[in-house]
């Protein structure tokens, strides 16, 4: 356990830097969440201030007022022409709607009498309220023609035409999915950087020739030493995996947790963590880095893989050449798997991406071992 403990003591020295990458991912999550919520609110905020002057006392006019009050901020008021013009000019209201007397009778007999809408013709959005009224009236009429009563027709229209409940429901669902997907897509940057920053300093320190010689002279068998390092690396990788997966899962909310998608996403990050750990071992076998070297390698590899592998830029926006290079990075296959998981593609495609990440990891590790062996022989 001595080596295991020493491993984590050295990792602890780099904890502030590792936490920095955790914070970066947290910030990205937060920013994504805020921006998505804001855009959803903007969509919901398409409720305008309007005034309805109902001169008719019919059921249909009352139902129309009720409908309008559901989709806009309606005030029931009677204003003079000048007052209306002033309110529209100063954008206090979007439109002033007058339901003329006798509108109810006209509606029943398919007459021409319709609600009058006053709005600023320079603002086309004013027309949209007019269109909403016409659509609602036509729909009610059509339902009535199908044999429904006025009340039933209004209820049907509420179901089919209520934009608030309909749009809100769809966008809300979409937002949650997008947030989870985008946060999990960013995770490889944090995972790779944190793993490099934790594993590289430890191995660089232990691989230092004189220290290594002293440890070898102490009679600690190489197999025992490698076993403890492997155990420590796995423990560290698992801790980082839990931390980063927790961020992604919390961002997704309880709906995503323990679903099929969630399990696939977790498996995807597990494959990536294994690959990133093997990459770190390869680098530590080839280079003996000091602290500056570790920072440089972390930034180059972390950012390079993230840009080429579709972590920062969606894969569809990458150029063909970049994609060809990107395919040699685990990030590419992680991002592809992430896309497939959230698109609901079949399992074989997803498993192939998992496998490719692991193959890249093993290949990198073998390269590191070969270089180390050649160097040792030399």
């Amino acid at each position, binding site marked *: 356990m001595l080596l295991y403990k*020493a491993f984590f003591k050295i990792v602890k020295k780099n904890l502030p830097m590792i936490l920095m990458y955790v914070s970066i991912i947290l910030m990205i999550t937060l920013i994504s969440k805020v921006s998505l919520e804001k855009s959803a609110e903007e969509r919901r905020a398409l409720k305008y201030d309007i005034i309805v002057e109902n001169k008719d006392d019919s059921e249909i006019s009352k139902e129309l007022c009720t409908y309008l009050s559901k989709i806009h901020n309606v005030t029931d008021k009677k204003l003079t022409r000048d007052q209306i013009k002033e309110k529209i000019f100063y954008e206090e209201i979007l439109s002033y709607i007058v339901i003329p007397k006798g509108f109810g009778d006209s509606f029943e007999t398919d007459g021409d009498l319709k609600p009058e809408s006053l709005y600023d013709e320079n603002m086309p959005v004013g027309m949209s309220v007019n269109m909403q009224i016409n659509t609602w009236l036509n729909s009610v009429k059509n339902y009535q023609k199908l044999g429904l009563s006025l009340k039933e027709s209004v209820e049907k229209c509420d179901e089919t035409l209520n934009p608030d409940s309909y749009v809100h429901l769809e966008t809300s669902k979409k937002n949650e999915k997008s947030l989870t997907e985008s946060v999990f897509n960013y995770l490889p940057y944090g995972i790779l950087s944190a793993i490099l920053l934790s594993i590289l300093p430890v191995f660089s320190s232990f691989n230092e020739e*004189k220290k290594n*010689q*002293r*440890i070898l002279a*102490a009679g600690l068998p190489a197999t025992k030493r490698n076993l403890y390092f492997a155990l420590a690396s796995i423990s560290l990788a698992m801790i980082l995996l839990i931390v980063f997966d927790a961020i992604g899962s919390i961002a997704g909310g309880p709906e995503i947790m323990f679903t099929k998608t969630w399990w696939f996403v977790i498996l995807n990050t597990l494959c990536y963590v294994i690959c990133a750990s093997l990459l770190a071992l390869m680098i530590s076998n080839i280079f003996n880095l000091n602290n500056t070297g570790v920072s440089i390698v972390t930034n180059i590899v972390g950012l390079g893989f993230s840009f080429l592998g579709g972590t920062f830029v969606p894969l569809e926006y990458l150029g063909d050449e970049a994609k060809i290079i990107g395919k040699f990075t685990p990030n590419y296959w992680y991002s592809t798997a992430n896309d497939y998981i959230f698109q609901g593609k079949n399992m074989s495609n997803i498993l192939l991406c998992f496998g490719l990440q692991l193959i890249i990891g093993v290949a990198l590790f073998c390269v590191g071992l070969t270089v180390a062996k050649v160097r040792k022989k030399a």
Partner: protein
Amino acid sequence: MEEIVRVNNLVKRYKDLIALDNFSFSIKKGEIFGLLGPNGSGKSTTINCILSLLTYDKGEVYLFGEKMNVNRNDIKKRIGLIGQNVAVFNELSVYENIDFFCGLYINDKATRRKYVEDALEFTGLNDYRKKSPKKLSGGLIRRLNIACGIAHKPELIIFDEPTVAVDPQSRNNILEGIKDLNKNGATVIYTSHYMEEVEEICSRILIMDKGHEICQGTADELKGQIKNTENVILNVKYIDESDLEGLKKIHHVYSVKYADKVLTIRFSGGKHNISHVLDYISEHSINYERIYSELPTLNDVFLEITGKELRD
């Protein structure tokens, strides 16, 4: 007395270079054994072969009476190694470093804690136990390096040029420490190319060059093997070739060397040699700044046997 180390006909080749050429020696319990030789003579290679850190082409190494090989971890646990380069973890504190290296040998926590405390006490690092090695001075970090090598109370301690690039005060501390460790029962192998240090602390010395033994024995025995009995040294700004020839004719003088404004006259026997030199230089009006006489050193032993300076 019990033999702690026995090296038989060790041969180590690096491609065409023969680093150790049928090299043999033995060390008895309680000795401070000095392995003296110029840089590249094979001292560190010998140590690495003894510890099985290097494979060798031929020969045998016996430690504590048993044959040593790379898998003899039980033997390795009885040895302490202090190299010329500081090998400690900057990421760990002084205490953690000693505890880590001690832990490579001692599993029992309570024993280890006591041993670490003893090592801190012995090296005078008690006040620095929580400090990072990065914050220690050069002398203190050397002490830490030693503490890491001796904390597990080894029976055989190998010091591989521990005083390279060390200030005189720290060097004296290290040498005193080695003497104390020896007094406490440890057998010591001390490699160095500094003959004064070896002469000061070693009970027996082996001088080596090009991978084989030149001679071995106590410092007095080694000096007794050569004809040089006294050196008279003068600081002279200029001297004629004819005067150098003239000095050679003084009775018992067998070598006269003038280099870097230092004139060294070596004698083999004789009495009042410095007076004879003074007579000659006053007769020939040779200007000098300083004149003194000294007994032969291990460098003279090396010089006489190999024909070159130990410091070359």
